[in-house]
């Protein structure tokens, strides 16, 4: 989105270099490898359901995504499968596809009968996916096109105004110029303001962990996993051993089967930590403490993070901008009765409260707008 802030060089850059503009979802091969009978090609055709099958079973791709999607698909993506089966034998692959043991999978894979050759093809295709990487998300170009279109309008309007003079009334090209230019400015400033902010950011995580399943369905308290929230500046992303407190027994999920939960066990066994994608992040020059806000200030998690307990995929709800912080500091009242630090330190304000000369003391009144509370 922020591409907009720019001039022509970027357009060139994008048009000439970005491969994501071409409309070919299949992994690219070198010309010499291009053979119709090639195993990976055949695997791809089976995976995408392009080969006639004996029965009317769903193709693999209908459940196992090849591309990123922003709605939750509980089934592992093709890329995910490629990673976990890369080192396994075809016989393992066979048992998982044709005769799965897990409850969820045995229901959906009911009736699948692929022979060994076909399995090999699928496996080879998946392997090629692994090496070529996952499908990249396509950039959204609508805004850019709109921006360029407005630029064109401006150019035409100016040319007509000074040279061609085809339009009878002068105010029309002038109006067009100001409207188009104004809209461009608006687009630029909005994008510039959003620079570095990630409102609505909801990336794919390495494990399809659902807060809804854990916090709402299973009623696990936020603090059970986010243990630092009361004492540390960091709320803490739970370590794998916290997951295992339950998942050493709960081995199969209601929605995702064994596949996702197995990733935790694999991480522990291979001594490879889980690399979550960070969603809520403040710039390095901002100091924020969960202990201050949650423990001392008695704020609810949802005030900043939204209704996380209703989310399958965690999304950043607020823009976490400084204006948003200060807005809350201006509105929020400090509870003097609760914490003796405030009543002992701000004696005059406390007296006012007691004498009911003021209805409440806001965070701003005790220095909540001062720079060095957060920036040092």
């Amino acid at each position, binding site marked *: 989105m922020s591409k907009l802030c720019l001039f022509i060089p970027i357009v060139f850059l994008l048009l000439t270099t970005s491969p994501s503009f071409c409309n070919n979802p299949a992994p690219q091969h070198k010309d010499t490898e291009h053979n119709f009978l090639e195993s990976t090609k055949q695997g791809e055709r089976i995976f995408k359901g392009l080969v006639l099958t004996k029965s009317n079973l769903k193709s693999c791709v209908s459940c196992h995504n090849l591309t990123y999607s922003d709605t939750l698909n509980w089934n592992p993506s093709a890329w995910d499968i490629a990673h976990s089966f890369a080192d396994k034998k075809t016989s393992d692959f066979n048992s998982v596809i044709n005769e799965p043991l897990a409850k969820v999978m045995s229901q959906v894979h009911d009736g699948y009968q692929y022979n060994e050759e076909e399995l090999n093809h699928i496996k080879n295709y998946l392997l090629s996916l692994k090496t070529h990487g996952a499908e990249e998300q396509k950039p959204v170009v609508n805004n850019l096109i709109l921006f360029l279109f407005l630029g064109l309008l401006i150019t035409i309007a100016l040319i007509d105004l000074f040279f061609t003079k085809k339009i009878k009334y002068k105010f029309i090209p002038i109006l067009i110029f100001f409207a188009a230019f104004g809209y461009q400015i608006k687009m630029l400033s909005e994008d510039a303001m959003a620079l570095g902010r990630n409102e609505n950011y909801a990336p794919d995580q390495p494990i399809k962990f659902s807060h809804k399943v854990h916090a709402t369905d299973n009623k696990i308290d936020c603090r059970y996993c986010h243990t630092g929230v009361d004492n540390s500046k960091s709320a803490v992303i739970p370590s794998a*051993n916290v997951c295992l407190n339950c998942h050493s027994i709960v081995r199969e999920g209601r929605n995702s089967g064994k596949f996702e939960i197995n990733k935790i066990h694999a991480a*522990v066994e291979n001594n490879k930590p889980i690399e979550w*994608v960070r969603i809520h992040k403040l710039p390095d*020059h901002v100091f924020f403490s969960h202990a201050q806000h949650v423990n001392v200030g008695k704020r609810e998690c949802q005030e900043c993070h939204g209704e996380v307990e209703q989310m399958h995929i965690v999304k950043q709800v607020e823009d976490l901008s400084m204006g948003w912080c200060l807005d809350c500091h201006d509105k929020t009242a400090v509870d003097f009765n609760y*914490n003796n630090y405030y009543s002992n*330190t701000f004696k005059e304000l406390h007296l006012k409260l007691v004498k009911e000369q003021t209805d409440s003391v806001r965070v701003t009144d005790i220095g909540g707008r*001062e*720079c060095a509370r957060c*920036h040092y």
Partner: protein
Amino acid sequence: MKKYWKSQQEKNESPEIKTVKHKPKGNLEQVLDIFEDGTVEAKSNRRDFLKLCGYSLAITTVLSSCENAVQKAIPYLNKPEEITPGIANYYASTYINGSDYASILVKTREGRPIKIEGNNLSPISNGACSARVQASVLSLYDSSRYQHPQIKQEKVSWDEFDKSVSDALEAQKGNQIALLTPTIFSPSTRKAIKLFTAKYPNIKWIQYDTQSASSILKAHKLCFGKEILPDYRFNKANLIVSFDADFLGTWINPAEYIKTYTDTRKLSGTSNKMSRHIQFESRMSLTGSNADERHTIKPSELNLLIAQLYNEILALKGLKKYNASESSQKIKELANDLFKQKSRSLVVSGSHDLNAQIIINAINYELENLDKTIRLDNPLQNHQAIDEDMDQLINDLVSGQVKGLICYHSNPVYNHHKGDQLKKAIEKLAFSLSIHEAPNETSSLMKFVAPDNHYLESWNDSEIKKNSFSLMQPAIHPLFDTRQFQASLLKWSDLETDYHKFIMKNWEETLFPTQTLYTSFKPYWEHTLQEGIFEIKNNSQAKSKFAQVDIQKAFDKLTQKPGTKNIELQVYETIALGNGTSANNPWLQEMPDPISKICWDNYLNISPKQAKEMELENGNMVKLNDKLELPVYILPGQAYNSVSIATGYGREICGKVGAEVGFNTSGFTQNGFSNVKLQKIEGQYDFAMTQTHHSMEGRAIVREANLDEYKKNPKAGNDHKHKYKNAGIYKEPEFPNHHWGLAIDLNACIGCGACTIACQAENNVPIVGKKEVIRAHEMSWIRIDRYFSGDENKPGVVFQPVMCQHCDNAPCENVCPVAATNHSSEGLNQMIYNRCIGTRYCGNNCPYKVRRFNWYDYTQADSIPNNLHDPAGLTSDLSRMVLNPDVTIRAKGVIEKCSMCVQRIQEGKLNAKLKGRKVKDGEIKTACQQTCPSGAILFGDLNDKSSELFKVTSSGRNYHLLEEIHTLPSVSYLTKIRNKKS
């Protein structure tokens, strides 16, 4: 008021316009400097400018087009119970580097040691840390350290290495081998060495100290029958006389002496008692600069003075005098004063002459100081080496009698005056094994290299004083494939290699039975490990007996030596670098010397009188003994016809930072003095001096008085008060809750500079390098100004730490066009880096000159690579591990300054809020205050009428810097009181 001066030039020259040495560069020229490679003075041209334009266009394009990078959040797999991300853990440990010792707490964040703090429980170091201790954490992340074992410069595995060493040791069984170490005062290490030498009886263990206390040890052997270093109690003495002992700087155990010395010199509300300190020395040392009375003498004149003083004391006691020339009036007076303070005085000497030390012992005996200010029952253990052992070893190595050498943590090729001979001898050896952390001049000659751990990665114990134990524990897993010395010894002795278990077993056998509090070992061990220290209570009051030594003989030897007309050279260690082991530590390299304020260099100190005779100026080159060419620094207070030079510089084999910095003093003896020839040669040298641009300009910046004046009037010397109330055009700010402030006791501050390094570690203050310091671009948030007063040959010296004064009527705040610096309701002058646009108006308008501008990107906070200026390699991933995550690193083009450790204030307030109570007085300590060995800095809440700070600032000694300009600082100073004889 006295006339203060900061340098020779200022004193002698008229305050007219001085010639500008460096032609100032315009803005554009400075921008284009980035294309020079730093060494070549290449001229930039039009093409460079076009390149710059094109480059910046490309950068803007790339920067503005890229999406926010995906950040990972990677939790532990199995989180250790004690670690919570975001909360610091502190582990009690011990710092040992050669003879340096401190009991410390290691602050770790997410498993990385980031700061060293003093351990308050330790009676030796008393919660203080020296600059070297503070800087030691940076050495942990030094990429020049050995990263794996080596045989003949080839990388090998530990298994192969151990096998080769064992084979080689077996093969050498018939030959004599020496194990060379610094003084080892760790009981478990001594035991491990004993086991090792028991397995290989052909190995002889020799200790070698660069600053030896050999003569004191031997004198005590003769006088008291025990080869010990006594326990000097400066806090029990009313009169301290030091003959060339730099006990506040580098002599024996300064960490302890600073505390005990300043304890007797601080004046609090009721007490107006203060010790008197008289120093005889040739070079202006840190100790001499703090003395009430300082006498400059040549090193060779020392002995006679000691002898004369002894004679006078004998005369006062009515005893028979020895034969010596008539003493001066000064000495007679001194003897008189000492005699009056009998049993409450202390005479020490740093002399390397055995006879001098015998007479010093005799003086203290006659003054009845034994068992009072000098105790022999708990001797210090950090110097045990005898010089003759080392001389013998070098002779044996040269003659081929000793055929193998194992060298641990010492670098005699560099710092012994016979290093050249030693170098040739080592090259010929059949077996040579080095156990060092980083390559140095000695280890690089050796065949086997068994890399040692850094102390923050090691287990150890120590017994700095008899019955005072402390433990060292690792704060991080070894970063490289290294193994600590003791574990290596155990391995080669075919024993269990876990040194941790070895210490535990040793303690269970030896120390656990000495206490009664714990009945089983495990809780005792855990408690001791948590506290870091363990003491055996010793209430015995053994009376020390003075043996009948041949005083006549010692006395005659002292008086025999005639004073020569030669120029005498003394080699000394600096406060920062010591013997040069830490030369690769950029924090220490950039720490200015307390007296000369020069960093990144050593130089020849000469006296002002001699400089005049030889027509020398600061930075002129001289030739020493026809071989060493080096610049001179005219040191006020240096004795005429004597010169001095610091060791620790001119390292050849060292990391990137320390190599080729300064001049190598090898060949000159470290212990004692040598006669030299001096000759002026052509050439001029640029010093990186941090105090050429700060001048007192006739104002009462440092205020001082003598003790007798103070007793009459507590406000003595502090009469430059201005009377205006609310003289500003702005409304005076109000502080409804806290009003943070600092008070600095100039009487306690000895100028050691520990606070500057603590600040650097706490606040991620960058290093700029020598070239930038010359351009006055140093970044330190706290500096120590040093002013001389009086006669240049016998100057008085004052030190004054200056940081941001957090003015309530701050001149910097109202000139900032973007309000990037403003005032908080808690009295802090806030600096917001991300709002700063770099006009530097604030820096120009600050009367205290404490604001620092980032002329380059020193920390890699910028994303523009050409802005980077990193002379010490501190932006590597490894070095960045030392950064404090709670303090922002600053980018190019912003101003920064002391924040009064606002991160610590916020942390302290949060702790109070979490517990639902007020902030307790003394709970929050700034980094400079925490480390200060003399307790000169006090932080507190000026609004809290019961706080220590409020009491101190209400005293008559309290004043503010430049009160007359009505800046209303929150930092205040207490006048310096001297105890001169009136």
